[in-house]
């Protein structure tokens, strides 16, 4: 049943741009791009249980690295995105080593990730060589070799590909020693240590994978919007948006971030479109917040998990 739905869903997603208008494609790109970022977050925050409120740092490193290398030395983002990913990985290793060495976990780790992201944001804000408060505009070239397209459709397929990549990696992790060890760490780190799990090493592995993949998303964003500034790319609100989609959909599951983004992203996009007139500007946020509260209260395991449980129950009955 699950395979059927996945297959059907994939076909629909692949064929969709042929049947719908540009506005719809834009929304879908938003949904998929957040699904991708949440999925990357999920590897560290969901499977390993190390909540990060600083993923915007990895994202920002990806976006800024490829953009700066492009604007200064005309290096194609297709190449520099890997440089950005490696830099994000090193940043993650640095932050992780410091935190885990001093035994920071749970809430304290959350604070440290937030602090590091803020540090990065402030540094970027204050250095003009990095664009400063005005940010960076990427010159309009529309060359596929420079990761730019005039139509939205190629961007759609690229982000769809990235989502597929992230799902594949998560799927592989789930059924591997890495996945089992990360979940053990999440569930009971002390018991995991006593069962032979090198907890620090595996937590760092999760940070590294998560950071690398998140940074790739940063480059995508840079090439799609062709503009970035420290607040939108490294700010804590981005980190929050990434995190809550995974949690609403079901953190630590394969489809959780995906489902979470399909619920929250349209909500925030559409309510912003339809309610920003005549004094109702605050309404989108109220609706958004209310949905979050309802889900936390009634479906704390996540909507995706709830859906899977319903499906399993349905299968057991028949």
């Amino acid at each position: 049943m699950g395979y059927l739905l996945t297959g059907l869903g994939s076909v629909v997603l692949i064929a969709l741009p042929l049947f719908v208008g540009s506005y719809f494609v834009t929304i879908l790109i938003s949904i998929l791009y957040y699904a991708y970022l949440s999925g990357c977050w999920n590897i560290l925050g969901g499977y390993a249980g190390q909540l990060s409120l600083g993923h915007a740092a990895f994202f920002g490193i990806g976006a800024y690295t490829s953009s700066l290398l492009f604007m200064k030395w005309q290096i194609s983002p297709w190449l520099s995105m890997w440089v950005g990913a490696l830099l994000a990985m090193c940043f993650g290793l640095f932050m992780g080593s410091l935190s885990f060495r001093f035994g920071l976990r749970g809430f304290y780790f959350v604070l440290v990730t937030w602090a590091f992201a803020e540090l990065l944001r402030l540094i970027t804000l204050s250095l003009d060589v990095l664009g400063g408060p005005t940010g960076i505009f990427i010159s309009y070239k529309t060359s596929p070799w420079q990761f730019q397209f005039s139509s939205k459709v190629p961007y759609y397929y690229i982000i769809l590909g990235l989502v597929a990549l992230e799902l594949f990696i998560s799927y592989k992790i789930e059924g591997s020693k890495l996945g089992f060890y990360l979940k053990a760490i999440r569930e009971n780190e002390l018991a995991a240590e006593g069962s032979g799990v090198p907890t620090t090493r595996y937590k760092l592995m999760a940070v590294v994978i998560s950071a690398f993949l998140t940074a790739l998303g940063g480059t995508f964003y840079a090439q799609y919007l062709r503009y970035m500034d420290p607040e939108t790319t490294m700010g804590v609100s981005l980190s929050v948006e990434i995190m809550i989609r995974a949690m609403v959909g079901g953190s630590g599951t394969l489809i959780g971030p995906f489902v979470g983004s399909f619920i929250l992203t349209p909500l925030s996009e559409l309510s912003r479109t339809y309610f920003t007139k005549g004094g109702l500007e605050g309404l989108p946020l109220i609706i958004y917040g209310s949905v979050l509260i309802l889900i936390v209260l009634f479906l704390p395991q996540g909507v995706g998990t709830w859906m899977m449980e319903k499906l399993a129950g349905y299968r057991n009955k028949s």
Partner: protein
Amino acid sequence: MSLLEVRRLTKSFGGLKAVAGVDFRLDKGEIVGLIGPNGAGKTTLFNLISGYLTPDAGEIYFRGVSLIRQKPHEVCHLGVARTFQIVQPFPNLTTFENVMVGALNRASSFEEGRALALEILKSMKLFEKRQVLAKNLTISDRKRLEMARALATQPDLLLLDEVMAGLNPSEVEEMIRLIQRIRKQGVTLLIIEHVLKAIMSLSDRIVVLHHGEKIADGSPEIVSRDTGVIEAYLGDLLLS
């Protein structure tokens, strides 16, 4: 060479000497009971051996290798596994997944680990419950799960911390038989226990701790008649 050698082991917390210059040895194949009134230092000793605590002084040698300053996962890798006084399962993982984490310690492949985990589940009578989340198991099953997970790491030495606590008499009987089976499979055991009947019937030797010091070390018959041991327990009874 003894399997485990502990020499002059000392650990203090603030001004309190939890373990004070303890010496003892374990030979391969033995079942040794570790008893003593509450607060005697038994679990602290376990924490020192398994790497959760670093001693202030003394030595711990396992198969000739020093365990001092090794992390718990390194100690586990060397062949020492332990259970906890208050069970520590992975609550949201299934029984199978719990044991699998242990099995991956020494397994050379994922498939080998999975086969070992399933085999252990069968021998610990947890196979039917392999898809049940650990948090939904009964206390008796959770204790068995903890032992199964420890056994899955393929230890040479297993430290059991009060596995009988909270079990009814027939469950205690079952646990005694289980422990004897584990010894037959070649695992050496050091057992902390308060259920005297179990300790007396299982142990080849008993080590008695009191206020962090070893006050007796010998066969169950000798130890049960040792005046120092009797006073320690009676004294504890009189004070409480």
